[in-house]
């Protein structure tokens, strides 16, 4: 279950956005859900000529921020684990 340490181990947090975000005009809850499997499993990702494996998690945060800008979402915070990056977004 949640411990207070969970509040301090973000890999990214936008305090300014967190403090200034106003959701007064929010009206539509139902979400659009997009899931893209580039490969069936992590083990299927091809290695480059040097034998290194680049994955979706190799993409820099700034690039994800730019991608999400097209969606009209901003990144409030990110938690990273050994196998996953979880972004909490505005809206």
């Amino acid at each position, binding site marked *: 279950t949640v411990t207070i340490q969970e509040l301090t181990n973000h890999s990214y947090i936008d305090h300014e956005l967190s403090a200034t975000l106003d959701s007064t005009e929010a009206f*539509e809850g*139902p979400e659009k859900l997009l899931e893209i499997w580039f490969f069936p499993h992590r083990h299927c990702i091809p290695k480059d000529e040097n034998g290194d494996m680049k994955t979706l998690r190799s993409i820099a945060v700034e690039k994800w921020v730019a991608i999400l800008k097209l969606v009209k979402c901003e990144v409030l915070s990110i938690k990273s684990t050994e196998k996953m990056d979880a972004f909490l977004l505005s809206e």
Partner: protein
Amino acid sequence: SSLFVCDHKITLKTCGTTTTLFCLEELFRIVEEELGWDMRAKKEENVGKYHPHKVFYSRRCFMFPLKQRSIHKRWSDEIEYLNKFFCYGSSYLVGRSDQSNHWNLYVTETNKNMNITDDCGEDDEDETLEILMTELDQTCAQQFSCKREVKTVEQSQQDENTSEDEGHLSGYKMTNATRLDRVYNNEKNVSFHHDAFAFTPCGYSSNIIMDEEYYYTLHVTPEKGWSYASFESNVPVRHVSNNKQDNISVINHVLSVFQPRDLCITFFCKSMDNESFKKLMKTSGEIPNYTKKDRIIYDLDDYHLLYIRFERN
């Protein structure tokens, strides 16, 4: 809204008037340029289109479709956009088309022709449970209201070094108070990572990661008149609970927090022998205070989909 990035897949779930599908072009450009992944379809008739392993796009019908932007106003326009981008896609309208609570799904055929090595085993246990709830009990919904003030950029910059992050702190407190951190009986004591945010004046989002690779996410819009909450999870309940819990118990836990008047459940899995699939198929009296209105099963290429709609008695 939330984004989950694994090494080989992404899940993007966004509410409000977001333009989810407009990220596709840039996403595939970056994937090609940065990772060298060539996802372009090989056959001549599909030139210019992409064919990754699998694509799912789904949403419940909107409450205010005309307030959406661009293609997201109409399901048919979204599908047209997706079909220009991906090959071998199919779309479905699931539920009663004459009612305003049906559910839409677009899914591509699995790409089985990727150059994948022999030792690339697929995870047949992959499953996703989603619960979409409307007309929340107002006492339950009020738990997701927040009284903190919205600050100006100047105020937030002045406070940056001294104050705590109130949005995340309130989100943390809401998660605790509503026991949404205890949806799963973590009998195996797997790792647990939590991130939540309380919007002001109301609303709540949280991402929870269990065992480093499974997530469940909640989004709540508590306003009376268009109240809504969603729960989505790919946590293998029997694994983390050491076989002591099932998805019926998970559903009942979530429903106890929101007590919606109407809900639909979707469950995706690879095999009809999946224990959760079999149990959910037979569900009737196990969800107290709710009556099942619809149950629909789809056989989708290499996935099975179960859709069930309930109404509160």
